């Protein structure tokens, strides 16, 4: 018997935290307690107070407002990076799994090679050639996801291309494009959706890491990783400055991980 999704504790918790994340991002587009870029020389490095719930940074900017605005950047980088990884990975996986032979072998070696480039390494390489920035971090993170999407898509295609319904469709005259788009690809989507969900928190972690290194989002835009980079110099003066952006990353990643785990449980026929 299929369980109602909301009775699945992990999934429900994940949905709740993710909803909070999206609501915060949406709210920050129209409202933040203060201007996230407004500086105040007299109000620097303050701890949490009624006026500034999360305190202020080294320029007197409101940390809560910056954390809220950082949500948008994290979500945007996550969505675009996973999109890049999924698009390129699925294309490689489709070609590899459907065509097979030398093309498959060549693409798989390329995928193995890409696996040697975690996001941080690609970002280093791109940042050396182009200016570091949010676009570089999106591309670098996206590339790091290519192998997992390519392998999953390829595995689905290898399994499905010889199945009766595909053979029957081919016998009825369906061309390659129709076979791929109408018959095989839709049947490989469930694990890819789960993969996208589980990749999303990894993308957010990677974005924060790259921003921390100065390879991602650039000042004065508020990214959680960048805020932690700035906070490090003032750890002894205002430790809260390092706690809230880090807490935001941890809560977001926790929520998205729970959502991914829950989704995987619910979509897996063995556990449903």
């Amino acid at each position, binding site marked *: 018997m299929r369980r109602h999704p909301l009775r699945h504790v992990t999934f429900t918790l994940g949905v709740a935290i993710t909803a909070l994340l999206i609501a915060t991002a949406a709210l920050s587009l129209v409202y933040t307690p203060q201007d996230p870029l407004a500086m105040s020389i007299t109000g620097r490095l303050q701890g949490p107070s009624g006026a500034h719930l999360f305190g202020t940074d080294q320029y007197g900017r409101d940390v809560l407002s910056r954390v809220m605005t950082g949500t948008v950047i994290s979500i945007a980088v996550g969505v675009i990076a996973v999109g890049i990884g999924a698009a390129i990975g699925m294309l490689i996986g489709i070609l590899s799994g459907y065509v097979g032979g030398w093309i498959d072998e060549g693409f*798989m*070696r*390329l995928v*193995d*090679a*890409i*696996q*040697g*480039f*975690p*996001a*941080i*390494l690609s970002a*280093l*390489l*791109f*940042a*050396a*050639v*182009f200016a*570091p920035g949010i676009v570089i971090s999106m591309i670098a993170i996206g590339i790091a996801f290519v192998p997992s999407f390519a392998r999953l898509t390829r595995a689905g295609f290898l399994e499905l291309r010889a199945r009766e319904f595909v053979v029957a469709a081919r016998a009825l005259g369906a061309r390659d494009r129709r076979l791929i788009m109408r018959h095989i690809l839709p049947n490989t989507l469930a694990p890819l959706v789960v993969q996208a969900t589980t990749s999303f*928190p990894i993308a957010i*972690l990677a974005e*924060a*890491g790259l921003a*921390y*290194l*100065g*390879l991602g989002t650039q000042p004065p835009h508020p990214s959680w*990783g960048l805020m*932690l980079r700035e*906070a*490090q110099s003032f*750890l*002894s003066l205002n*430790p809260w400055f*390092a706690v809230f952006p*880090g807490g935001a*990353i*941890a*809560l977001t*990643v*926790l929520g998205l*991980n*729970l959502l991914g785990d829950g989704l995987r449980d619910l979509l897996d026929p063995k556990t449903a």
Partner: protein
Amino acid sequence: MRGYIARRVAAFVATLFFVSGLVFVVVRVLPGDPALVIIGPEGSPEAAARLREALGLNRPILVQYTEWLGRALRGDLGVSLQYDVPVGRLILSRLPVTLPLTVMAALLMLTAALPLGLYAARRHRRAGDYLAMVVSQIGIAIPGFWAGLLLILLFSVHLGWVQSGGFAGWSGGLWPGVRSLLLPAIALGFFQTAVLVRATRSSVLDVLREDYVRTARAKGVSELSVIAKHTLRNAMIPIVTVAGLQLGQLMAGAIILESVFALPGLGRLALGAITARDLPVVQGVTLFVASTIVLINFVVDLLYVVLDPRIRYE
């Protein structure tokens, strides 16, 4: 077995070839003119032309790649524009920081994750299992560099037990070096430990549900033997796969942790090279790290032969 190994070696060589190609394309082809990247917008056209000539950038791209690859295979990764020393020597000089940091994080990960994952699986759906899963879920959510900052906050700022960063080196003995890498290694290994706990638990649970484990228990085989001989051996393949992938992630993660703890390793070398527009160093470091990760994946592939007799007799 020989066939399997030969296939893996061929795939490894082909993968390395692709790795070198990707690095070369990004550094030499994508920017259009690498000389302009190196000298920056303030450089004169004459200086760019001289640099192009000196670096051999005027020649056809395939000739450049072949020569670069040939030199790289001999260990010659070019000369740093910033330090004017061979890139290979620079990498070797930073390895005594990055390598021990990665190894220490890996050791911490393995010694913590394997027993915890095994414990959680054996206590499936009991308090111990739930606790281990909650802790690992939190561990996966905390980025290594934030864990590093929190460790600095606790042990350096509040307790004053250790310095907030820097590397003592190995010349004064083993302990000062290990001591300065301890916090970074904990921060680095924290996330991956959480991942491996979950992988170990899941893999052991899968094996514990197998008929042969039930049969072994029904025959009266001791629990220790069931776990050591029947369960762990068979559960190791997915665990080794995850742990192998994690070694590569640890090496990449070390780049960030070196910045948090001001350690003079490969990561800081590369970051400094980006600021100085020292393309040969960035190219060399990325080629080295990516090749090492591919090598680790290759070794993991070979380990399957040891762990899974089916591959040996294939």
